[in-house]
Structure formats: C-alpha cells, structure tokens
C-alpha cells in the first residue's frame, strides 16, 4: 500500500516534470501522432512491394525475411530505453561480436555449447556494465564511452577468434536462430522478439521505471533533484543493453550456423535508424515503443522490397542512411516553417541556388565517370 502510494506520487511528479520541461512541439502535436504517418508509409510500401514482385506476399518468404530482421528488432528494445533517457549506445554490435566470438572460441576449444553460450552472456552483460559504470559513475558522455568500447569490444572479438571461424554448432543450438515454433511458420526469433517487445513496452509505458526514463531524458538535473536514482538507472540500462546484445549474439550465431569476428558489424546503424525513425527524440524524453516497432516493420519492408528488385545490400545503406537523416531533418524543417514561416531574402535564395548547383555538378560528374558494369576497372 505504502509502496504503491509512493510510486503514484512519483508518477505524478515525473509527469509534471515531463509537462514542464518537454520541448515545444507545435508541429508534431498538430499532426498528432507520428505513428499514423508510419502506418500510412507501411501500407504504401506493402502495396509497392506486392506490385514489384509476386513473391512478396508469400508466407515462407515473409517468415524467412522476418527472422533475419529480428536481431535488429531485439537490439532495438534496450536502445529505445537508452535514447529516451537521453543517452546512446554505439557499442551494441561490437558487444554482440565480442560475445559471439567468445562463444565461438570456447566451442572451438571443446567446451559444451551451452556453457559457452552462458559465458558469452556473462561477458556481454559485463561489457554493458562497464559502459554503464563509466557513464553513470565516472560521469562521461555515453557517446564517447560507447565509441571507445565500440572499438574495444570489436577488437576483443578479433583477439578471440582472429582469422578463425567457429562452425558446426549442434542442432539444438541452431534452433535459436533457424527453428520455427512447433506446427507454425513462425520463427523462434520472431516469437522471442514479440514477447520481449511486449515486456519492454509495458515497462516503458506502465511502470515507474519507464516514467523515470522520460524524466531523465527531459531534464536530468531536475530528475536528480526530484529523487530519481539517475546513476543506478543508467547502470541498469546499459547492463540490460549488454545482456540483450549477447542474447542476440546467440540468435545470430545460431542463424548463421557459424561465427566470425566481424559478425554483426554495422548493425548499430540500423538499430539507431529504427529507433529514430520511430519518432523517438534523439535528444531524449519523448517516444513510444509502438512507434519503434512500426518503424522496424517499415525498414524491414523497405529492405525486403529492395532485395526483391535485387538492389545490393551496400546500396541499401544509402536508403537507410537517407531515412535516418530525413526522419530528423523533415520534422525539424516543418517545425521551422510552421513556427516562423518562410523568410526568404535575396541572399538565402542565392545560397540555396549555389548549393543546389554544386550538388547537381557533383552528381553529373558522378554519373558521367561512373563505372559501366561488367568491364572490370574501366
């Protein structure tokens, strides 16, 4: 009874916090929810995709693709928490690589796969704990710390496995990444994602802990003064992120059936893109789990569609990168226009024209000197 009272009290406190310190968002408020825009985009992409290829709406195909995308989805869940609290974790993919490589190394040395998997989870969790400690106790910015561990953890992955690979995992283990729930087409990893997403969503939106995250993201100082245990929460967040990274390491290694030290390289980019595109404020304090899930589906469908019309994976990076930038740039531009109207004078028009001309020149040169396919090096 007392406890629930306290938490209720806390809740009302942090909600006033949120109201007082929330940045003004006239445009987003008018449009109401970013989520509806995402739903509309998803519908458009589904229609486009099914036009592009008859293989799109094939259950087998969808199930295979979605299982390949769930690693990003699971990694995204703690990232949502971290970004809402105003931090960032660049080391998730490296932590994943480090844990998977340790497991591979131990497995190659003849250790039982489940013991190796346990060691991997332990290492990944410790990796997250180190991040959290440096950020919360030594009070370093999360960007720098995780940039350092981004290199350090990936480096350790190379130290563990070098130019070796681990393969031939037992079937019971590969089920984690390749198996389907008995009697259905639903891959195990999708089920895992759905369960975790519901738990994370409930924690974010229905508990005091979730409220604290928004409070910290909106105004850390105010959160500290109103009694939020900021340092402890940050340590918990990054430890959780490390734990999830190592969990995904198992799923990914199981799906590939092998581990190389470069496993999962660059995943952090897609993960952060998914979070930001989900309408979660990169500066913290605002966002929903549903938005993140929708943007994950959107990105998955876009990539799937590009795969259907055989666009190379690396070129897909152009689209993902554009999505990332536009999802922040467009609301910010609209907000500016809604807030102050267009103030065009001669100088600004001239500079816009000059800049456009430069970009046009760049792309003319780009396409003019571009390689013609199939003739190597010309």
């Amino acid at each position, binding site marked *: 009874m007392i406890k629930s009272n306290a938490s209720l009290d806390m809740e009302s406190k942090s909600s006033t916090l949120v109201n007082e310190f929330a940045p003004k968002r006239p445009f987003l408020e008018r449009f109401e929810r970013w989520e509806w825009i995402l739903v509309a985009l998803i519908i458009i992409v589904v229609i486009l995709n099914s036009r592009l290829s008859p293989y799109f709406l094939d259950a087998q195909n969808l199930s295979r693709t979605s299982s390949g995308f769930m690693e990003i989805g699971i990694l995204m869940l703690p990232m949502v928490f971290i970004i809402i609290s105003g931090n960032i974790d660049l080391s998730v993919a490296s932590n994943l690589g480090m844990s998977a490589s340790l497991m591979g190394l131990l497995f190659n040395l003849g250790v039982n796969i489940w013991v190796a998997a346990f060691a991997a989870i332990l290492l990944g969790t410790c990796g997250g704990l180190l991040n959290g400690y440096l950020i919360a106790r030594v009070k370093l910015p999360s960007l720098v710390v995780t940039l350092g561990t981004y290199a350090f953890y990936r480096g350790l992955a190379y130290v563990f496995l070098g130019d070796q690979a681990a393969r031939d995992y037992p079937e019971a283990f590969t089920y984690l990444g390749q198996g389907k729930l008995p009697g259905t087409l639903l891959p195990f990893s999708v089920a895992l994602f759905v369960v975790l997403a519901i738990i994370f969503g409930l924690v974010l939106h229905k508990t005091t802990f979730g409220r604290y995250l928004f409070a910290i993201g909106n105004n850390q100082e105010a959160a500290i003064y109103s009694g939020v245990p900021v340092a402890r929460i940050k340590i918990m967040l990054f430890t959780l992120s490390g734990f999830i990274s190592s969990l995904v390491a198992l799923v990914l290694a199981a799906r590939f059936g092998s581990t190389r030290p470069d496993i999962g390289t660059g995943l952090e980019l897609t993960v952060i893109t998914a979070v930001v595109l989900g309408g979660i404020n990169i500066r913290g304090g605002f966002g929903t789990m549903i938005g993140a899930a929708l943007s994950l589906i959107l990105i998955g469908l876009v990539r799937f569609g590009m795969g259907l019309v055989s666009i190379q994976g690396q070129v897909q990076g152009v689209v993902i990168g554009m999505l990332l930038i536009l999802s922040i740039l467009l609301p910010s531009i609209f907000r500016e226009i809604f807030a102050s109207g267009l103030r065009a004078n001669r100088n600004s028009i001239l500079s816009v024209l000059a800049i456009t001309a430069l970009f046009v020149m760049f792309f003319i040169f*780009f396409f003019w000197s571009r390689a013609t396919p199939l003739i190597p090096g010309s």
Partner: protein
Amino acid sequence: MNLKNAFVNRSNFLPAIARFRETGISIFILLLIVAVTLRNPSFLTADNFTDILLNISILVIVALAQAMVIITRGIDLSVSSMIGLVAMMTAFFANQYPDMPIFIIVLLGMALGAILGMFNGLIISYGKVPPIIATLGTLSIYRGLIFFYSQGTWINPFELPKDLKLLTKGTMLGLPNAVICAIVVALIVYYFLNHTRPGRDIYAVGSNPEAAEYSGIRTKRVIFLVYLISGIACGLAAVMWVSRYEAAQTNTAQGFELQTVAAGVVGGVNISGGVGTVPGVLLGTFLLGIIENSLPLLHISPFWQLAAQGLLILIAVVSDSFISRSVQRKE
C-alpha cells in the same frame, strides 16, 4: 552572471588539462619507445621512424580536421566513407585521363570532398540534425554510393598513372612527400586555429555556444565551416590514399573514422568541446602510429590493434575526467 561564470571557469581549467595531457602523452610515448627498443633494437632506427611518419601522414591530416569538428562539440563519423568515395572517383578519373596534371587530380579530390563535407555541414548546422546522427547516416550513404559508383569493380595499381603513384612516395629534404604534406597541413591548421578569427571562433563556439552567439559569432556558419574543412581534408587524404596504396577499392578506409577520433581524444581534444591543440593531436597520432608499428616488432598479434585503440580512447577520456575534476577542486 551565470553564463559569464561558466565561461571564465572553463577557460581557466580546460587549457590546464590540455597542457597536462601534452606532457603526459609525451612521457608515455618516451616510455613506450624505451620499452619497445629494449625488446627489439630495430625499432629505434631512422628508417623505421620514417616509416612510422609515412604511415601516419594521412591520419594526421584527417585527425586535425576531426579535432576541429570535435572542438565545436560535434563529431564527423563519415570521414572514412568520404575518403573511400573520393578515392574511388579520383582513381576512376585518373584512370580515364592518365595525362592529366597531378595538381588537377588533387584539386578535384578536394572539391569532391568539399561537396560531401558541405552536405554534412548543411544538415548539421542549418538542418539541426545532431552531428552523430547526421554523420552516421552519411557514413552509410557515402559508402553505399561507392558501390553504386564502382558497380563492384575496383582500380588496380597498373591502371593508375605513374605520376599519381609517385605523388606521396617521392622524397624532398630526405622525407617522403606525404610527410611534408602532413607537416604543411599541420602548420596551416596551427596558424588557422591560433591566429585567425574563424579559428578562434571555433574554440568560442565549442566552449560555450550561447555566449558565442551573444558575442556576435555566427555559430551556424562556424559549424558549417568545420564540416566543410573536414570534407576538404578527406578529399586531400583520399588522393594521398590512392597514391600511397595504388588502388581504390569499395572498402577503402573502412573503420578509419575511429582512428581519427582516437588520435584527437588521446591527444587531449575534449569531446565536450572547446579544448584541443594541434601539437596534442600530432602527439596522439604519433602514439597510434608507434603502437601500430611496434605490435609486429613485439610479436603481438595484429588483431590486438583495434582493441588497443579502443582501450586508449577509454583510458584517455577517463584520465581526462579525473584530471579536470582535480583541477576544478583546486580552484
């Protein structure tokens, strides 16, 4: 009042860190040199040191630009992709026009880099996209464009004109051209940061953006400028990269962004802005170069290199924070 206090405080204790850092890292480098030489005397030879300098010359140029970006509280993660893209484009151009004078290729590289850097600068300063997100995005955009541009092909050593290959390798005054180029760039950046108005504005914007705005500095322009400079530096670095490694591949310079950040941060450039010196960055780069060079001499697996870089970044930022806290306490 508050603002003014913050300004004064920072300007008092932050240079103290930088000074401390430069002596600290110098001592560390000396100890490292002694230790490596004791294990393997072939480390301390003129040839080997020329080798180290040649290896870090490209890094110096980009790390100095990265340092300017970090001083304004930003970060440019897209440098590696800019180098890769410009390297590919200039290599194709040089391959198609082997008789083109070399300075035109260098200018072309810098112009292409400038346009890429300008894109970063625009979305960050005028579009208000956080630097980390913007450059993470362009990191993958520019890298994707390399594949789109090259169609999966690459440029081999025999396809490049000889002049271009000699650009970095010729020697002047007993030093390779690349090293001389890096020294010239370092001198220019030193003069720019310490003795010109835009250079001082970069520090002002990084120390306290609001105060800078109130004192009449056009912060947006300054921020745009540093990303533009970063692009130009990457363009120059790209041409040097093609010349030095005699090839342009789709994965050219991948992961290089980390080294540029590491060099700056290890050399005392504070990631929260406002602090950083050219000598510091040079020392940081030199330290990275020594570590890279000495690992094989000590028979340590080259796979340790990345881990060592990451660890160095962590040690540097942790020690920075302890130093700045103790300096603050003294005041």
